[in-house]
C-alpha cells in the first residue's frame, strides 16, 4: 500500500448564500515511500489547494467536502486535531512558494527552527539549536551559527528558501510537499535550489510532491507526473512517458509551450484561451473550449480517468498513436 493515498478529494468554496463551487473535483493521488511525484498545471488548477488539503489546512470559508486522505494507513480527515498536528510539519513537511513571505519577520531564524522541533519532540534549547545549525549546514548555508540568530530580512531570497528547506528537513519527514519552491526566486538560483531539493530527497529517501506550473522543472526531478486542469487530474503516469508521448491534449499543449522544446526562431505555442474559474466551468470536459481535438461529445459528458496501459488519461480522444506499449 502507498504511504499516502488520496481518494475522491473534493474541496468546496461557498458561492453566494447557498451554492458551493468545487476547487478540487474528486482528486486521487498515491505516493510510495521515497517516491518523487510532480503535480503540474496552470495557476488556478487546484494544485496548491491539493497541497493544503493533504495537511488539512484549507482555510475558511473553504472546506473539504468529500474524499479521504490516508497516510500510513490512517485517514487524516477524521484524526483528532492533536494527532494531525503531530503529522503536520513532522512526518509531512511543506515548502512554500515565496521565501520572502514564508518566514515570520519578527522572529529569528533560530526561534522558528527550534519551535518546530519543540512542537514535535521533547528537546531542550541547546540540543535543538545544535540540530538546527546542522540542518542549516546541510542546505549549504554559509556560517550557519551566525545565521541561526539572524532575522529573515537580513537574508537574501535564495538563502531564505534554503532556511525553509532546512526547517522542512528538521524532523526527518517522510514526505515533503514543495509548492512552486523556485517560482519566486531569481533564475540563476532556481536551478541550485531545485538540485538541493532533489539531492536531499534522494539522500534521505524522502517522498516529494513537487507542485509546479513548469513541466521543464519536474522533468529533471520527478519519477511520476500528475497533470491537473480545473480541479481534476487529466493525466497521470511516469514522467518519461508523459513527456515523450503526452496522452492528453492538455499535456501536449503544456509541452508545446515550453521554451526549451521550441527550436530557435519558432514561435512559442501557447494554448489559446484561459482556464475557466471554478465558478463558471463549462459543461462536459472542462478543457474542451481550448482543445483542438474536441468533438461533439466533449461538450456534454465529463470524461473519467481511465487506464491506458501503465498510465491513466481522462479524455475521449487521447493521443495514443501506437506509442503505448
Amino acid at each position: 500500500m502507498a504511504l499516502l493515498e488520496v481518494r475522491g478529494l473534493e474541496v468546496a468554496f461557498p458561492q453566494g448564500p447557498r451554492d458551493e463551487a468545487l476547487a478540487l473535483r474528486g482528486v486521487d493521488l498515491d505516493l510510495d515511500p521515497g517516491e518523487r511525484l510532480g503535480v503540474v498545471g496552470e495557476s488556478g488548477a487546484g494544485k496548491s489547494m491539493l497541497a493544503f488539503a493533504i495537511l488539512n489546512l484549507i482555510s475558511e470559508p473553504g472546506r473539504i467536502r468529500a474524499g479521504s486522505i490516508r497516510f500510513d494507513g490512517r485517514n487524516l480527515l477524521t484524526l483528532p486535531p492533536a494527532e494531525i498536528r503531530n503529522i503536520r510539519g513532522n512526518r509531512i513537511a511543506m515548502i512554500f512558494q515565496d521565501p520572502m513571505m514564508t518566514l515570520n519577520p519578527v522572529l529569528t531564524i533560530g526561534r522558528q527552527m527550534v519551535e518546530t522541533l519543540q512542537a514535535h519532540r521533547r528537546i531542550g534549547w541547546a540540543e535543538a539549536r545544535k540540530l538546527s545549525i546542522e540542518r542549516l549546514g546541510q542546505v549549504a548555508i554559509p556560517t550557519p551559527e551566525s545565521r541561526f540568530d539572524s532575522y529573515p530580512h537580513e537574508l537574501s531570497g535564495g538563502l531564505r528558501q534554503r532556511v525553509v528547506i532546512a526547517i522542512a528537513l528538521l524532523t526527518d519527514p517522510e514526505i515533503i510537499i514543495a509548492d512552486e519552491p523556485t517560482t519566486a526566486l531569481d533564475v540563476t538560483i532556481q536551478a541550485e535550489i531545485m538540485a538541493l531539493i532533489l539531492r536531499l530527497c534522494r539522500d534521505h529517501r524522502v517522498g516529494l510532491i513537487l507542485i509546479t506550473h513548469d513541466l521543464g522543472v519536474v522533468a529533471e526531478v520527478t519519477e511520476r507526473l500528475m497533470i491537473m486542469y480545473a480541479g481534476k487530474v487529466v493525466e497521470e503516469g511516469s514522467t518519461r512517458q508523459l513527456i515523450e508521448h503526452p496522452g492528453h491534449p492538455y499535456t501536449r499543449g503544456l509541452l508545446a509551450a515550453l521554451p526549451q522544446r521550441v527550436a530557435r526562431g519558432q514561435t512559442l505555442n501557447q494554448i489559446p484561451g484561459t482556464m475557466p474559474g471554478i465558478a463558471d466551468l463549462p459543461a462536459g470536459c472542462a478543457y474542451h473550449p481550448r482543445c483542438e481535438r474536441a468533438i461533439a461529445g466533449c461538450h456534454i459528458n465529463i470524461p473519467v480517468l481511465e487506464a491506458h496501459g501503465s498510465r491513466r488519461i481522462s479524455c475521449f480522444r487521447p493521443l495514443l498513436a501506437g506509442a503505448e506499449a
Partner: protein
Amino acid sequence: MHILAFLIRRLFQAVIVMLIISIIGFSIQDQLGDPLRELVGQSVSEAEREALRDRMGLNDPFWTQYLRFLGNALGGDLGTSYFFKKPALEVILAKFPATFELVLGATFLFVSASIPGGIYCAIRPRAWLARFIMAGSIIGLSIPIFLTAIFLIWIFAVELGVMPSFGRGETVTLPWGWRTGFLTRDGLLHLVLPSISLAAIMLPLFIRLIRAEMIETLSTEYVRFAWAKGLAARRVWFVHAFRNTLLPVVTVGGLQIGTLIAYTILTETVFQWPGMGFMFLEAVKRVDTPLIIAYIIVVGMIFVIVNTIVDLVYTLINPMVKLPGAQG
C-alpha cells in the same frame, strides 16, 4: 548604536514640534486680551498705560516678545494665573496626577479587555459571541463619551446610590508631592465610574483595530507556514500572529493619545474630576489666559513625549527597524 541615532533624530523632531506649539501658544496669548487689564484698574490714564506697556515690553516686535516668552517658558515660567495668583505651571502640575491616574485606570481597563476581545473576534469571526462583540462595538462607538458618563452617574450614583458621583475622594500625598487616589478605598471607588467612561469609548475602537489587524496577519503566508509546521494553535495565534499584530496596533494606538486627552476633558467635566481638563474649561470660562496657554503647552509636551515613547516601543518590537541597512 542605531538606537542612539534614532533617539537623537526623534528628540530633534520633538524640539521642533514643541517650538511650533510654543509659537501658537504665544500668538494666542498675544490675541487674548491685554495683561494690563488684569494689572491696573480703570483709573489709570491712557498715557500711563502706554508707559507701562513700554516698560513691560508689550510694544516690542512680535519675535522679540516671543523670544522673551520662550526664554521664560524654558525656565519653567509660563506666566501667572489671573485667578489663582500662582504660577500657571504650578497650578497645572498640581492637577496632573488626577488626570494621569484617570488615564492610567482607563488604559488598564480598555487594554486588558480589548486584547482578548480583539483576538477572539479575529480567530473565531463566525462565533455568535464575536458577532455580538462586533455589533456591540458599533453601538459603543455611537455613544458619545459624555453620555456614557452621564448614564453611569444616573444609574449608579443617582438611582442606586452605590457609587460616588463626583470628585476624586480621599487622596494621599506622596513624599514627592504627588497626590494619589490609588491608596485609599474611597479614592479607588471614585476612580471606577470615570475610568469606565473613558475606557468605554476607547474599547470598541481598539477591539475593531486589533481584530482587523489580526485577521490581516492570520491570512499571511508566514502564519500558514506556522500551521504547516504543526505548531500548537496557541503558539500560532499568540507568538506568530499577535506579535505582528502589535506593530500596527502600537502605531495606530499611539495616534489615539490626542483623542484620549480630549476625552479626559469631557470625562473630567462630567465627574468634576479635579484634573487638568476640568481646570482648562474653568480657565476658559474665566478667560485666565496664562492658564489656557500653559495647558496647551503642557498637553503638547505630553503628546510629544508619548509619541516618542510609542516610536521607541515600535522600534524595540520590530527587528526590521532596529537594524537599518544590515547585511542582506
